[in-house]
C-alpha cells in the first residue's frame, strides 16, 4: 500500500476526533499533578490542525507539506509545552517523507522514531522522567526493533500502538523529573502522566487510521 497526502489529512482528522473524545479525561489526569489543561491543548491544537489540513488541496500538496502545515498550526494554536514538542515532532515526521508523494507502510512505521527524536531534542527529557517521551520512546524502540527484524508494516504498526500504551502505563510508577509535575516530587508517583496518556491515544489514532 501507498499513502498519499489524502491519507495524512485523514490521519489528522482521526487524531482530532480522538482528542475531542479524550479532552476531559486528559484534563483530569493533568489536574492531579499539573495544571489541568493538557486535554484542552491537544483538543484545541488538533482541531485547528484538522481545519487547516482539510483546507489543503490534496492534489497539489505533498505529505511533507501536510505535516509542516500541521506543525505550524499546532504550535500557534497551543503554545504550552505540547506545542513546541509536537511541532518539532511533526516537522521531523514530515522531513522523513521529503521528496515523496506517497509513503509506504514502512515509511509510516518510521514516523514514530522520527517524532520521538524530535520530542527528545526539543524537550531534553530522558525516558523515565515521566513525560510523553516515555510513551514515544517505548513505541519507538519497538518499531526500530521490528524494522531491523524485517517485520511486516501492519504488524509493526499494531506493535507500536501496544508499546505506546505500555509506555504510558509505565509512567504511573514514576516520579516526575521534568515539566510542572517535577515540583511535586514524590507526590507525582501513582498517577499517569497526562502527556504520556495523550501520546498513547495519539499514536493509536495516527497509526490506526492507516490500518482501518
Amino acid at each position: 500500500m501507498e499513502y498519499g497526502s489524502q491519507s495524512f489529512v485523514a490521519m489528522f482528522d482521526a487524531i482530532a476526533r480522538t482528542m475531542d473524545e479524550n479532552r476531559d479525561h486528559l484534563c483530569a489526569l493533568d489536574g492531579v499533578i499539573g495544571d489541568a489543561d493538557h486535554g484542552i491543548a491537544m483538543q484545541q491544537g488538533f482541531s485547528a490542525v484538522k481545519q487547516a489540513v482539510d483546507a489543503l488541496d490534496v492534489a497539489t500538496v505533498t505529505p511533507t507539506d501536510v505535516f509542516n502545515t500541521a506543525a505550524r498550526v499546532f504550535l500557534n494554536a497551543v503554545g504550552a509545552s505540547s506545542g513546541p514538542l509536537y511541532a518539532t515532532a511533526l516537522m521531523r515526521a514530515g522531513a522523513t517523507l521529503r521528496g515523496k508523494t506517497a509513503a509506504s507502510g514502512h515509511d509510516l512505521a518510521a514516523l514514530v522514531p522520527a517524532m520521538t527524536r524530535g520530542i527528545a531534542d526539543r524537550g531534553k527529557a530522558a525516558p523515565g522522567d515521566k513525560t510523553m517521551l516515555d510513551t514515544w520512546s517505548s513505541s519507538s524502540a519497538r518499531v526500530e526493533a521490528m524494522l531491523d527484524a524485517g517485520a511486516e508494516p501492519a504488524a509493526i504498526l499494531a506493535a507500536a500502538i501496544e508499546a505506546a500504551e505500555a509506555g504510558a502505563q509505565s509512567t504511573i510508577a514514576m516520579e516526575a523529573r521534568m515539566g510542572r509535575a517535577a515540583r511535586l516530587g514524590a507526590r507525582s508517583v501513582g498517577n499517569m502522566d497526562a502527556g504520556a496518556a495523550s501520546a498513547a491515544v495519539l499514536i493509536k489514532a495516527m497509526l490506526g487510521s492507516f490500518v482501518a
Partner: protein
Amino acid sequence: MAKTKKIINSGAAVVDEMVEGICLAHSDLVMALPDSPRSLVARHGPRPGKVGMVIGGGSGHEPSFLGFVGKGLADAAAVGNVFASPPPDPILACARAASKGAGVVFLYGNYAGDVMNFDMAAEMAAMEDIEVRTIVTTDDVASAPPDQKHKRRGVAGNFFVFKAAGAACDKMLPIDEVERIANLANSRTYTVGVGLSACSLPQTRVPNFQLGEDEMEIGLGIHGEPGVERGPLRTADAIVDDMIDRIFAEMKPARGDRVALLVNSLGGTPLMELYVMNRRVRQRLAEAGVEVHATWVGPYCTSLEAAGASVTLFHLDDELTGLLDRPADCAMFRA
C-alpha cells in the same frame, strides 16, 4: 461535580475576547498588534536606544502579565492560552515591536513550556538580528531546594523582577546592565504561596483538583496546580509564620535590612484576608529588625478564581530601591 460558573461566552473565545476588552478599556496605554492580536504593546514604551522588554506567559494570571505593559515596565507582552505559554510567533512579534536598536530582554517565569516557546522565539529574533537576552524568574522558594534554584518556578515575585528590569530599561541602561539587574532582582526575590481551593479552566469548568474541607496546599504555583505539600488549614498567623520562616531561611536578613513586600491573592482570596496576613508579616519583619520600604497588597499574579495567597519579600539594596521607586504607568499597575 458542580461546574464552576463563569461570566464568559465560550471557553474557546475567552482569551481573545479578554484581550479585546483590555485594549478597549486601556486604549491610551496599550494596543494589540494588528497582525498579531495576542501581542500587546505599550503605546509609550518602546523608544530609540532603549532596551526593549518583553514579558509573557499563559492567560489566567491577570493582571500578570499583560497588565504590566506600559511606560516604565514592559514594552510588550505575549499572551498565551489559559495556563499555556504563548507560541513563538506572538513572542517574536513582541520582540520586533520592542526592538529599538539596543536589544531586547525576555522575562518570564520558569516553566518548561515558556522556556521552549521563548527560546524558539529568541532564535527566530536572532535570525532577524535582534539581540535577545533571557532572564527566567525563579522566586518560588518552595518549589525546589536551594541547591536547585534554577529549577524553581517563577510566581508572584515576577512583579519585582519585572519592575526592576523595566526601570533599568526606562533609565536607558545598556542591555548588559539590564540583564545584570534583572538577574540580581531575581536572586533577591523570595515567594511562598498557599492554596485553599482549586480553579477551573473555562473550557471544562471543572476544579483542577479536590482538596479536603480542612486542607490547604503549601508551596503552590500559579496555575492551579497542587502544591509541594498538603496540610491542614491553619490560622492566618500560622500560615504567614511558615511562609516567613521558609523565606528567612534563605534570605538570611540582617537587622536594618530593607525589603519591599507583596501580599498577593491567587484570585479568590479577598483583600480582607490579605491585610490580615500583612499584619502578621509586619510583626515578623519588625521582630527581625527588617524595614519595609514599600508594600503592595492585592491580586498581582493570579490563578483564575483560585483561593489562596502568597507572600513575596524583595530584599532591597540601594540600586534596587531606586529602580523600584521609579514611576510606571500600565493598564493594571501604576507606581
